[in-house]
């Protein structure tokens, strides 16, 4: 009983870390520029397909493809931001929503055109396949790896946001964009870099997600809802908030599926609606 409970929490935590990687970029860019980028998961999909292509067609080792997934998604996101998104910063949230939904539609169709509509297979290396038994509970090696990667990314993110000059600029822009501009901070440049970083992390998340949740052409749609929930619950522009929200969501989703399978996804939607009604700006969000 206890063993299965620990197992569920562990799996949920791994799943939550995945959601965190997928959503942290969106949280920061939304907090900074108030830009509702529903196409965020399309960047994750780019990362996933880069990893699939490199390992399956070109025979790269799995670990070596992860940086490439990050770079490809980051590059794609910065191109999109510089060419199209920046024209919409002053538009209403409805226009931003619609435009980015359009981008999701296009990316889903393009993925289906090149890769078909089947689930993509992935060969993970043997040292990530087994599991470790500890106090009678099986911990899958891949999920441990996932949690370690996510914690590492979080540590790097928090360090660079809290202790570097660039991080201070980003935080200033999130808190008060106009004031930051007034102080001579190049908010547009800070935003472009943050956007690329967020897109890259989503790409990394997409690559790591294949083993856990699979990858098909509809990925950008399927996980959009989860990512939005993490962002909305955690609060805009809050990395810690996203982290906690993703962990809570991952564990409650896993526990719901394990203990109340007939509820389906009902539980996490209920949790989201409840939290948003209680705190519209999210758990850690500031009221604007």
């Amino acid at each position, binding site marked *: 009983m206890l063993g299965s409970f620990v197992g569920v929490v562990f799996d949920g935590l791994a799943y939550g870390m995945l959601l965190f990687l997928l959503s942290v970029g969106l949280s920061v860019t939304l907090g900074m520029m108030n830009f509702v980028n529903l196409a965020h998961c399309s960047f994750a999909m780019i990362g996933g397909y880069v990893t699939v292509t490199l390992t399956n067609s070109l025979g790269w080792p799995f670990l070596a493809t992860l940086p490439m997934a990050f770079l490809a998604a980051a590059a794609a996101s910065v191109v999109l931001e510089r060419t199209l998104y920046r024209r919409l910063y002053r538009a209403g949230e*409805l226009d931003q929503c619609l435009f980015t*939904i359009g981008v999701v539609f*296009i990316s*889903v*169709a393009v993925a289906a055109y090149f890769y078909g509509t089947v689930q993509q297979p992935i060969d993970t290396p043997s040292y990530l396949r087994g599991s470790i038994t500890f106090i009678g509970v099986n911990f899958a090696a891949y999920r441990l790896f996932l949690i370690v990667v996510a914690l590492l990314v979080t540590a790097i993110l928090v360090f660079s946001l809290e202790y570097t000059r660039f991080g201070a600029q980003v935080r200033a822009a999130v808190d008060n964009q106009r004031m930051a501009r007034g102080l001579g901070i190049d908010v547009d440049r800070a935003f472009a870099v943050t956007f690329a970083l967020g897109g890259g992390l989503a790409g990394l998340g997409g690559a790591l997600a294949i083993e856990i949740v699979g990858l098909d052409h509809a990925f950008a749609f399927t996980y959009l*809802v989860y990512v939005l929930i993490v962002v909305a619950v955690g609060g805009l522009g809050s990395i810690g908030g996203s982290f906690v929200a993703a962990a809570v969501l991952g564990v409650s989703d896993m526990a719901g599926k394990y203990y109340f399978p007939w509820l389906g996804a009902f539980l996490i939607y209920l949790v989201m609606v409840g939290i*948003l009604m209680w705190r519209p700006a999210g758990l850690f969000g500031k009221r604007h």
Partner: protein
Amino acid sequence: MKSADFFQEQIRWRPIEIAFWIATLLPFVVAPAYLQLASQIAITALFALSLDLILGYAGIVSLGHAAYFGVGAYTAGLLAKHAWGEPLSGLVVAGALAGMVGYLTSHIIVRFRHLALIMLTLGLGLLLHEAANSASALTGGADGLQGVRIRPLFEVFKFDLYGRTAYAYSLVVLFACFLVSRRIIHSPFGLALRGIRENALRMPAIGAPSRAHLRKVYTIAALIAGVAGALLAQTTETVSLEVLSFGRSADVLVILILGGAGRLYGGLLGAIIYMVARDQFSGINPQYWYFWIGLLLVTVVMLLPNGILGGLAKFFPRKT
């Protein structure tokens, strides 16, 4: 200009409007083979009209409007399956129930704005979708509701395979709801809604009860959406889980934006273009259909911020 004259001028029927409604009768003569499609278009147009009331006029962005469409559809379907199959009373009950759900949720909706509002409408829609999926004993779950039998309209006109009755029925209901919406929009209440859309803070300052107004229009929109859902259930004699899906909410948003929000006819025009195009492209893979829809959305937002009707209005400025 006196205020009464202003509303008189607003409500006056323009020749192009009359021409449009006469043209809706054309499918009976020109394309009798496509009456089923025409009926689907009329239902979608009605759904888009209901979204226009809250989005175009009151500025409430909703990503979960299909919830009320689905409530109406399931009410009409279950009523016909278990109780009685008379269509008109079924329509009334379905609309009333959807309106009631709309009234209850409106108390939540009007308290929020911006991203929280979008997420809440999305969340409520998904909740209802999951609930219908879980309650498969009642709704048939993913297999859909089977065994819906609808009595002939007025006990005379059967719902046949060609869709003659279906289209006439849908069209009349659409026209009736359109008249009501048109009347609402051109009333002082409708004007107050537009005021709230433009500036939600100043309207209370001049004495308009913003939240009460928003609750009212949200309830009306939910009711009309429920009627549209009931129409779909009755004319197709089946209800699938898809009526509650996020895809339907997104589609109707696309249709409205494509046609032009806040213009009454925007949703109608958008529904015609969208449904006809989808029917023509249905031969090819649906994945590629989404590519074109995506491209269309991106172009409309970039180049035609007020939809097709907004673009046309630039070329034909209205005489004032």
